[in-house]
């Protein structure tokens, strides 16, 4: 590989540590073929490999069972092909998300790839992490706009699936299987993406409510309307402050936030429609803005998740998925579980049902074992109701001792069989995924 792409210095290795686990070597291949060779070697030697791009999502998933090599893709960072006329591109997995976004914007186009820590995140990592953002309301998730991919399996085979055209049903869509697989099946080397025309002007709407159930019902009403919002979420305690602060809004208790893009006429029409719809429900007031203020608000909104790391370091963050009509009841029950343990719950929920639960201690000095007690309570709650979820953030002590996955995943045996098909020696991020995969 050459010594400049292979590093065993402890400082380099610590950079890719996952909790208390530090790899013995950091490897930065410069081609897909070299990457494949590294994996063949690791498979032969049974060395556990954790693939990473910018290393901004290493907190996702469980601690690996073993961790010998950090396999870094940032030297595979070329934009291989970009055909703006076809609204498609092929990019190497190690290219930074913000760099690619800039390149695409220069052509008057747009990538709906908004992930936390976009200034470090790579395209491959963003896709493999499966994280979603508010723009899914309009653009869907990576599953919807990843057209194909090239990747290397755990036994070092270079393979690809899909293609670079927007419509394609040839063969199994293995690239879609890699979305959200946390590097446990294969290492992405190239990703083929769909791009979109830059949307029109931004209309940002914030509708304040005093009660979550009213807000959630209004959210469903907007989702069912013929207005195609770019983003549509409901926020409560904690999240609402994160959004309001720095935007000079009064922090609401509960609010529905909507992002619409279109012409001036369409924006005016939507503003009027939403005001009219809101006049029929139990709400407080509406803030609407356009132009720079609206753009700042929507950007802040897209970064809410990452703000938890800096602004709420003593908290527990869980991603789950709730049927929109069951949303406010489930949240009320969870609040009732958390309150006796000294925690309050803030919710960020997409209209589609994806929900981020943020538990924060009421007291500034919570008892040392209170997070563990809360976690156990939530696990039991999820299990009893057939819910599933994933812990995204927790104080270090909890992160070290318990699995992040909560709720029973169905079809675990099928997932294990697929893992075996991609990574027969079980060297890729062993133990990080659902069910200990």
């Amino acid at each position: 590989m050459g010594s400049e792409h292979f590093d065993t210095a402890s400082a380099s290795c610590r950079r890719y540590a996952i909790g208390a686990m530090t790899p013995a070597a950091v490897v930065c291949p410069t081609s897909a073929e070299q990457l494949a060779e590294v994996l063949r070697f690791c498979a032969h030697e049974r060395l556990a490999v954790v693939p990473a791009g910018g290393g901004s999502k290493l907190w996702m998933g469980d601690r690996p069972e073993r961790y010998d090599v950090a396999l870094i893709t940032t030297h595979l960072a070329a934009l291989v092909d970009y055909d703006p006329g076809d609204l498609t591109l092929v990019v190497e997995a190690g290219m930074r998300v913000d760099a690619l976004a800039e390149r695409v914007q220069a052509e008057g186009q747009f990538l709906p790839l908004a992930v936390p820590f976009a200034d470090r995140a790579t395209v491959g990592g963003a896709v493999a992490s499966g994280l979603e953002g508010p723009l899914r309301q309009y653009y869907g998730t990576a599953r919807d706009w990843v057209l194909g991919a090239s990747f290397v399996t755990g036994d070092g085979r270079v393979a690809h699936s899909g293609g670079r055209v927007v419509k394609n049903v040839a063969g199994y869509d293995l690239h879609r299987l890699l979305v959200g697989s946390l590097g446990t099946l294969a290492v992405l080397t190239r990703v083929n993406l769909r791009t979109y025309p830059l949307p029109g002007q931004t209309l940002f709407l914030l509708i304040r409510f005093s009660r979550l159930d009213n807000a959630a019902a209004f959210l469903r009403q907007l989702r069912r309307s013929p207005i195609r919002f770019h983003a549509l979420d409901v926020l409560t305690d904690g999240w609402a402050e994160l959004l309001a602060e720095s935007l000079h809004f009064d922090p609401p208790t509960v609010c529905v936030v909507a992002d619409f893009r279109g012409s001036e006429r369409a924006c005016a029409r939507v503003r009027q429609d939403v005001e009219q719809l809101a006049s029929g429900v139990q709400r407080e007031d509406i803030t609407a803005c356009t132009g720079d203020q609206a753009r700042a608000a929507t950007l802040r909104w897209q970064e809410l998740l990452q703000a938890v790391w800096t602004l709420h370091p003593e908290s527990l963050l869980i991603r789950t998925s709730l049927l929109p009509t069951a949303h406010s009841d489930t949240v009320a029950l969870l609040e009732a579980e958390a309150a006796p343990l000294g925690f309050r719950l803030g919710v960020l929920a997409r209209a589609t049902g994806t929900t981020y639960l943020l538990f924060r201690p009421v007291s500034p000095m919570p008892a040392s074992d209170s997070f563990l007690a809360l976690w156990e309570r939530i696990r039991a709650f999820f299990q009893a109701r057939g819910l599933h979820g994933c812990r995204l953030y927790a104080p270090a002590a909890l992160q070290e001792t318990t699995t992040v996955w909560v709720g029973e995943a169905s079809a675990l045996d099928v997932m294990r069989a697929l893992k075996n098909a991609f990574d027969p020696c079980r060297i890729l991020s062993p133990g990080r995924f659902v069910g200990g995969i």
Partner: protein
Amino acid sequence: MSGAWVRELRAILGPDHVLTDPAEVQLYQYDGSIERGRPDGVVFPADKQQVVEIVRVANRYRLPLTARGAGTGLSGGSLARHGGIQVVFSRMRRILHLDPDNLLAVVEPGVVNWELSQAAARWGLHFAPDPSSQRACTIGGNVAENAGGPHTLAYGVTANHVLALEVVTAEGRLLRLGSTTGDPAGYDLVALMVGSEGTLALAVEITVRLTPLPEAVRTLLAIFDTTDDATATVAALTAAGITPVACEMMDGWSIRMVEAWVQAGLPVDAAALLLIEVDGLREEAEEKAEKVAAVCRAHRAREVRLARDADERERLWKARKNAFGAVGRVAPNCYVQDGVIPRTRLPETLRRIAEIGRRYGFDIGNVFHAGDGNLHPMIVFDQRQPGALERARAAADEIIALCVSLGGSITGEHGVGMEKDHLMLLLFTEADLELMRRVHNALDPDDRLNPGKIFPAGKLCGEIRAVTARA
């Protein structure tokens, strides 16, 4: 020998729901393609438990199992290539749950695509994928083939609208995959299943996303004197940042075929037309329609018509969706192809397809989804002439090889089925196919489900390279 499994199936399903009489069974050897595949028996389960039982019988007697909806497929995907049991879902056609508040529906696989949209319409919703066969084809078939349609340009294909599945595995187990909100717990097995052509499991319950109907729709017909002007218009629309919900093209030959049958008022002297639809709020639809018309005129459209009302719009779409039928009326045989190219390569591709037609001596019409580069060349031939079918297939293979050489795909929405398994090596390496085979074997190790599909038979590799070399 065949007696025992037939007796078992009759005991499970009742005698009326198992066909083995050759005269009856042979009706199931066709679909909408030029392929044939005859099952040994045809069964019609009434519920998922019966499907489980059928799979167990197939396993005991080592019989292949092939699922079928309405049989409208265009690649032989639902044909029993190696015989065995054909599972027809026509009795499992209930909409189990329609939930307008959560924008979803739970359906059995035999529900007809159009019927679901009709049922959802009273809530102002619809199921977005709309293949041309939507009045007959089933949601189960849409899931198997990852079906598209004209409006997938803006709304996406079937894969973008399936939230969860209940499947019967090859070993005869019921399994729930995905979630009603579309967030998987673990690997996205729904994404793997959709488009797997019935080779990984049998879908017995499907949860789909419903989409609000637009407030306003504007349909434009742009008429051109040259094909190049029409294809240049498609590229210019994309460049102008306009995303229509549909952008369909019909060449002059096809216009004349269709007009002779449908009488939709199409210009029979035109070289090409574009059927372009935009939608959204009233304001949005109007603005977009104006922009589209301006781009068409800037590219020498001789006329741009805006459909005045729903009736006229319906008539234009009827013309488009009946195009293949119209050609079938005048031609002894019509072979509809399905290839994809990057949208920027449309002009040269159409020229080269015409050239292939001339070389083989066939008329080739083009009615297709221009907006997403999904071509549907129709090769007109007469099967009664010796060698004509073989030459039609050879011409089709050349067209597909051309698509691949331009960076496209061998199929955009019809599937690989048994029509294009030999073309898979144009797109995929041996290593790619080996991995797909391993994925297949993880779910169906005995090759019980729809064998002989997607994967090329090894002996054909040489022929593939011959096709590539010609292209």
